């Protein structure tokens, strides 16, 4: 007997009788019966499973929050308990996609509000109700740009997260898109002179990240000017958007990013959630579900999925995307987090992240380290390290720190560089501790 399966022997018997069959095997008449027993252990009780899975969890090392100085796409933040308490409500967790709007108003309204918040953060006109993650959202943005103008050359800043770039390239395999990498200048920003040089009649879109992979705040005003009529796609970090003028203000066409910093724990990288915002004029080219406001038969406000004719259920191979299941629960988590933090809270977190990162940079410089780039940065920055930094990095881990990441991992060209990160969880004290251990370690 399995606690999740209710059938008693007698019921199985009765049900088979009703159907008019003799045995369970009769149900499988159409199936060529070739399978031998699966080579898996027998089912276990939940207490044994708990012990086994807990043991796996305990084999992972959890670093104290204030001792994490690594970001690169996954950021450690404080998450109020109320976020999990709300986002783990079974009414959200065990619901399906809101196909029956009248009994899914909770989902629909929450996602409509989420869309609004994303619009507010990014400065865009319309947002969908989530993508899988930042990387796939960017890949979809690139495909959308291609749908918009039919052109094939994508000018991709080298300061976009390498995993995002790789994802774009994978997604683009079915199309004839070329990716032209645009290097950064010595400020660490995307080199706009280079960019200008590469733009031609085939150019479809410009992709930059804000703040970029090296932490540098791109000057979107100038990017927009240089990008001319190309589709400007900005990958943005959402917390930073409470401190930085949003891409929408500068005329971005598509803004995407990963919502992980907004109340989602690191989760070993997933699930997070991708956000996706654009302009109304492009909405019919946008991938993903959109929730719209409407009225019910009695004139009360309600919410439904709209513009479904773009989607795969109806358009099939002509759909704007194949995405069906998205990351609604994580979008809800974002919305709950933003509801708790509000504009003030988000700004405060952005300011503290900025302040801590700059303090760390300053102290590193005082200890003789050199920053690689001169541009303004938000909560991440690159500094110069020894060639064998990875050894030090591992030693630091053993001392309890997830230290700035060896950039060489991402690209051989980035040898002897490290990518540091600070958020509001770090403290002056934990920064000083890191520096002390680094000093000890590098001797």
């Amino acid at each position, binding site marked *: 007997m399995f606690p999740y399966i209710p059938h008693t022997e007698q019921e199985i018997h009765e049900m088979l009788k009703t159907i008019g069959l003799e045995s369970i095997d009769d149900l499988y008449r159409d199936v060529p019966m070739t399978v031998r027993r699966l080579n898996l252990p027998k089912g276990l009780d939940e207490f044994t499973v708990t012990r086994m899975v807990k043991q796996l969890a305990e084999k992972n090392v959890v670093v104290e929050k204030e001792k994490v100085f690594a970001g690169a796409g996954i950021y450690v933040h404080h998450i109020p308990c109320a976020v999990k308490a709300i986002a783990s409500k079974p009414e959200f967790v065990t619901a*399906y996609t*809101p*196909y*029956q709007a009248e009994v899914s108003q909770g989902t629909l309204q929450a996602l409509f509000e989420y869309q609004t918040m994303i619009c507010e953060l990014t400065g865009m006109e319309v947002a969908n109700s989530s993508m899988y993650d930042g990387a796939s959202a960017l890949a979809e943005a690139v495909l959308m740009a291609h749908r918009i103008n039919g052109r094939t050359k994508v000018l991709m800043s080298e300061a976009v997260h390498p995993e995002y770039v790789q994802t774009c390239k994978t997604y683009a395999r079915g199309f004839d898109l070329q990716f032209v990498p645009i290097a950064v200048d010595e400020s660490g920003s995307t080199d706009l002179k280079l960019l200008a040089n590469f733009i031609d009649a085939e150019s479809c879109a410009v992709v930059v990240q804000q703040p970029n992979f090296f932490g540098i705040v791109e000057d979107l005003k100038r990017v927009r000017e240089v990008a001319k009529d190309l589709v400007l796609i900005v990958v943005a970090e959402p917390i930073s958007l409470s401190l930085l003028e949003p891409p929408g203000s500068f005329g971005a066409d598509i803004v995407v990013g990963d919502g992980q910093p907004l109340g989602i724990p690191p989760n*070993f990288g997933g699930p997070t959630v991708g956000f996706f915002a654009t302009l109304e004029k492009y909405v019919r080219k946008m991938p993903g579900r959109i929730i719209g406001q409407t009225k*019910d038969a009695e004139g009360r406000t309600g919410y439904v999925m709209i513009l479904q004719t773009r989607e795969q259920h109806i358009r099939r191979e002509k759909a704007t995307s194949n995405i069906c299941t998205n990351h609604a629960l994580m979008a809800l988590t974002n919305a709950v987090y933003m509801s708790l933090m509000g504009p003030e809270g988000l700004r405060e977190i952005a300011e503290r992240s900025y302040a801590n990162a700059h303090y760390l940079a300053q102290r590193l410089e005082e200890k003789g380290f050199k920053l690689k780039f001169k541009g303004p940065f938000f909560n991440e920055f690159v500094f110069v390290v020894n060639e064998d930094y990875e050894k030090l990095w591992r030693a630091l881990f053993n001392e309890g720190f*997830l230290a700035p990441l060896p950039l060489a991992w991402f690209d051989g060209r980035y040898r002897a560089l490290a990518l540091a990160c600070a958020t509001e969880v770090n403290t002056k004290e934990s920064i000083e501790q890191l520096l002390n251990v680094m000093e000890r370690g590098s001797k």
Partner: protein
Amino acid sequence: MTVFERSVAGRRGFKLPESTVPFEKKDLPEHLVRAKKPRLPQLSEVDVVRHYTELASKNYSVDKGFYPLGSCTMKYNPKLNEFLASLEGFTEIHPYQPIDSIQGALELMYNLKQALCEITGMDEMTLQPAAGAHGELTGMLIVRAYHLSRNDAKRTVALVPDSAHGTNPASAAMAGFEVVELKSTKDGLLDVEELKKHLSDRVAVLMLTNPNTLGLFEKDILEISKLVHEAGALLYYDGANLNAIMGRFRPGDMGFDVVHLNLHKTFSAPHGMGGPGSGPVGVKQFLARFLPVPLVRKSEDGSYYPDYDLPESIGRMRSFYGNFTVLVKAYAYILTMGEDGLKHASEMAVLNANYLRKLLSRYFKIASERTCMHEFVVDGSEFVKKTGVRILDVAKRLLDYGVHAPTVYFPLIVHEAMMIEPTETENKQTLDQFAEIMGKIVEEAIKDPGLVKSAPHNTPVKRLDDVTATKNPVYRYQ
């Protein structure tokens, strides 16, 4: 009331630790500093809790009741799995930690992958895709890479039955294939003659869902497999609907080359209002070299590592490793059910579907006469003709009785379709009640069609106008 309408300027739902480093706008040029704050709501904690408590109360969910959405496998989501997935050792680890500090996570992924390979009969698997459609795209890109690797660039056609889930043609198109639709037989099965007509040296792959979206097992699968492979094409298995066949049938044994799974269906990970899910893709050995990176492997010393060294890989499908905490849930489920439990789950899912099918056949025509697998499709066309009540109305009326409606108007090949999947976690009493309600609604449709046409009546809102919603779209709260 929206969360924005609850907002009052100056109210706060957070408090941060004492700041230890003061903020100074050092290097930021003025024009890049945000001038106008985003209009996010300003609320105290209790406001936020009450807002979402109210929203939650307006949702139907599996924990509330029967959710017979066809093709969605809304089975019960064990509380154990939620608990395990929320362990700090899983949620608080960073993907860029040293490999030896994430051995538990990698081991779990490795074990899960092995178990899923065993269940499907495949040789290697990626756990990176975030959902079924994401898995499909992954799989189709692998198919594409395979043919290109053999310099067989002319194979640009993907054959997709007209009964397929919409993601199939969409994913095939996104992978750069030209989609050719195969008409099903009257019975709703793949038409072998039709297949033969379309097979050629331009065909890269046949995408098959088995059991298909009518809930039927493709009984000619051995022949189909033979034909496809003889034509030099590959056979793709949409395994979103695996819930009928665990322990009874392994796609890998029957010639399928690529399989994607929906862990958020068969493996009990909850749907979360539409995700996150997880869509692993399994392949036969000859395709393993095309899988996305990183691939979790076990080294000889017994440790686990992410392998990036696949030069022919299609690349990444997304950032990091995949939806890891969803994987934890699926893994816990497989451990709990085991070999015996998985088979039993499938058998009971099929039993439930056939039982309910039998009960409903009193009121409706069933789209196929065959024994069904985990789900079946009601053909409502006669009912609609007779009563003037649409299947959509029946669906809405079901909501009044406190159960969720089945999937309607899908698969497209059945007119006025109602696709019903009870899953194995529902008991006989629930199925009996559902059939009884359906009987009542049929009666209502005859005696008082207006009642059904104007349903729902007992829901938080009445029938919503989605036509205007799309015509004059309101995308955001203003």
